């Protein structure tokens, strides 16, 4: 199939990303991650592999953490999406973002957005995770810099912070 033919198959989609509604026409084969990065300019979602192992592209799709390299943009039609750029509320960092800074959970920063999005999903479903649960939840996100030690600490820190906020 030629590119021209594929282009003629282009599909209209509507989706909401970080609270903003977007309409676009995409080739059916466009991966969601490239749609977010190249069509919407949301480059905080990264690409680190081509086999869905590294998790650098993790986002939330309808409230669930997914690897956006494994979702077609057309599959996200009608979806609500949150990327790393949409996690902070104005100037107030999400507790996980604070935690990654407090506990030195980021070095080169490339895996960090995906790591934070996976951790945010964990904390949304399990506000009091054990260390073992944190490690298991992050098994789909690879980091080569930190040895995960301070990432785990950052998630624990954020869980405590969120707990304190709920009690306020």
């Amino acid at each position, binding site marked *: 199939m030629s590119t021209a033919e594929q282009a003629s198959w282009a599909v209209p989609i509507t989706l909401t990303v970080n609270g903003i509604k977007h309409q676009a026409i995409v080739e059916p084969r466009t991966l969601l991650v490239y749609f977010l990065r190249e069509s919407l300019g949301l480059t*905080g*979602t990264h690409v680190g592999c081509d086999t869905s192992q590294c998790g650098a592209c993790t986002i939330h799709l309808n409230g669930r953490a997914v690897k956006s390299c494994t979702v077609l943009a057309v599959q996200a039609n009608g979806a609500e999406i949150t990327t790393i750029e949409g996690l902070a509320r104005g100037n107030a960092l999400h507790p996980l973002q604070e935690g990654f800074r407090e506990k030195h959970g980021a070095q080169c920063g490339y895996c*960090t957005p995906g790591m934070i999005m996976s951790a945010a999903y964990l904390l949304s479903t399990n506000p009091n995770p054990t260390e073992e649960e944190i490690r298991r939840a992050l098994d789909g996100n690879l980091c080569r810099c930190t040895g995960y030690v301070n990432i785990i600490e950052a998630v624990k820190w954020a869980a405590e912070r969120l707990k304190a906020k709920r009690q306020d």
Partner: protein
Amino acid sequence: MTTEHAPAGLIGASIRRVEDPVLVTGRGCYVDDVQLPGMLHMAFLRSPYPHAKIKSIDTSAAKAIPGVVSVVTGNDLSDRLMVAIAPMVPGMKIPPHPLLARGAVHAAGTPVAAVVAESRAVALDAANAVEVEYDPLPAVVNAEKALEPGAPLAREELDSNICYIATKKGGDVDRAFAEADHVVRMHIASPRLVAMAIEPRGIVAKPEPAGDLTIWLSTQSPHRVRADLANSIGFPEHRIRVIAPDVGGGFGSKGPLYQEYALAAHLALRLGRPIKWVATRSEDFVTTNQGRDQAMTSELALKRDGTMLGLKVRVVANLGAYLQSNTAGPPQRMMAMAPGCYQIRNCHVEVVAVFTNTVSTGPYRGAGRPESVLNIERLVDKAARDLGIDRLEIRRKNFIRPEQFPYRTGVGVEYDSGDYEKSLAEALRLSDYEKMLRYRDEARTRGELVGIGLSTFVEPSGGAGFESGTVRVERTGEITVLTGSSSHGQGHETVFAQLVAEKMRLSMDHVAIRHGDTIAVQQGVGTFGSRSAVMGGGALALAVERVIEKARRIAANLVEAAPEDVVQTDGGFAVAGVPEKKITWRQIAAAAYGRRVPGIEPGLQETVFFDPGREAWGFGTHVALVRIDRETGTPTLEKLVLVDDCGVILNPMIVEGQVHGGVAQGLGEAFREQMLYGEQGEVLTGSLMSYAVPRASDMPPLILGETVTPNPFHPLGVKGIGEAGCNGAPPAVANAVMDALAPLGIDHIDMPYTAPKLWKAIRDAEAKQGKSKN
């Protein structure tokens, strides 16, 4: 927050990173985030064969695809376009490294054709539409087999597979071995590893209207790559600007100029449009420098009491098929630290560096250090076992002693300082060593396989070449710092700001660190080899002193006092004993740029090209406790204690982070990771589906400790730390695994210690002992 703004006490404090607010919000800018108007995309067709002649290439189908701008093959490029390689070792053979294959391919992954197109997807489509007919040739993948008579030639242009042979020696080795009571002989092979920075390699090359060239590159070494690019494509260096934006990890693998970069730059100039190329992970697996793959055949000569007399090592190093600028480096490093932390006066170390039909090797975190430490630490443990001497005693007996520094080793290298006994003692204390011994011995009585291992090691850092640093007081008294140490995750913007702010007695928010742009930063080298604190930090320490001295003279002039009566105070200077007579940095800057100060050149900026003339030798002791499931072979690392000494610590949080990361990579090597090729050279582990990088649940609890032995030859007293974790931990694990298997009479197994490998070794040993439960 207050600690981050206190002008004093910054050096040595765990200051949170300046870099992080950008990175945790997804606002970093990595190469693939650079989007330019009119930008084209490049993709490659790569050889699936490790060694083959190219019979024909048909690009017509690719060229017919709408959106394709250019399809090029090796024949379309001038034969002067080569990756420029300087001979790192005298006399080394340097076979051609063309940007695209010319007539033959020598490793799976060699680029055969490149497509430039209007989109990434079209470029990939068209690359796959290029048709190539190959005539496969015999391939060789194992370096030791490549040396056997009749082995296929990896590079048919050469008459052998040897790139170079190098030796380091000292003392009288023959006599040492003749006088020895015992000689330990071992063959130890280190696995081939993939650096696996989570950001794949990539480039954006943009021709500028006035004829210049701007490059955004995921690199550890922007200035060096710029010169190599100039030499490779015949374009003037001074008209190239290399920008290393945020770089997503490197671990050594992002040091050199790779052929894709030279080709992107060349084609961008030829086509007059910006070109982006970012490797897919699969491409990264077969194109980016890999690490280790050194095989050591070693002999250690000892007296009966454990005194080490002599060391012979023959290293066969696998270089891969094509040399990169730094491929020859790691075996050199291996040689230079072969005797480790021991007094072995008589040494003979030989490296045979070998071409094979595999991906290039090069520096990967450790870069020869882990191989060397593994070699000597396994030998020492084996010697202890053979001679019936305690492994602590044999180490203590042979340690270089604190009073012997600076100490020239048996391979002619001078170590600056150290206290290995103290490091060992601290590691034993933290690991509760005696209790661990009892734990192991009790487990053994139950037939369980539990072992303790340790490694006592040195970590050379910095040293090679120079590094640059500039400290500039701007007109308003704010401080701009330029460093040649271009960061890719090490936190330079934080640590260097701590250093300069404290020295200038300012809060950190007055100091901005700039790096990674060749038009902003004077010549520099980069970040690798545990060098930034030593080299970049050293340059800045000297530059800031010079700025302070000039500022003192300006301040003296302003207050009409003698310079020796003007002292530093928070935020500026004051006359000694008259604190109210204060001159701020802002006032000094205004004078430096605004009015004439008699006898003082205008401006307030100092640049230092720092060369300490020697390496900084950090050291440490790592202790591992390993349990192996006798039925399944599954190893569990129950305890890992890491005591490191990197001299004066600038930011403990960042030092610990470096140790964590190094250890994770070391444990990957010890338990999981290995790049594998089939007998014919086919790639077996070419993606993350098959190459096992440690995950969050693989990491054991770590116990970190430290000793501090300041570097007497450095203005800050620092030594490097970046590679300690991957130097010390794998040999400690190896010794622990072999200790666990000792009751089965197993002498040595090479890493990685996967469950199937250990299971087979246990079954074989049990069968041999006639105790197989089956």
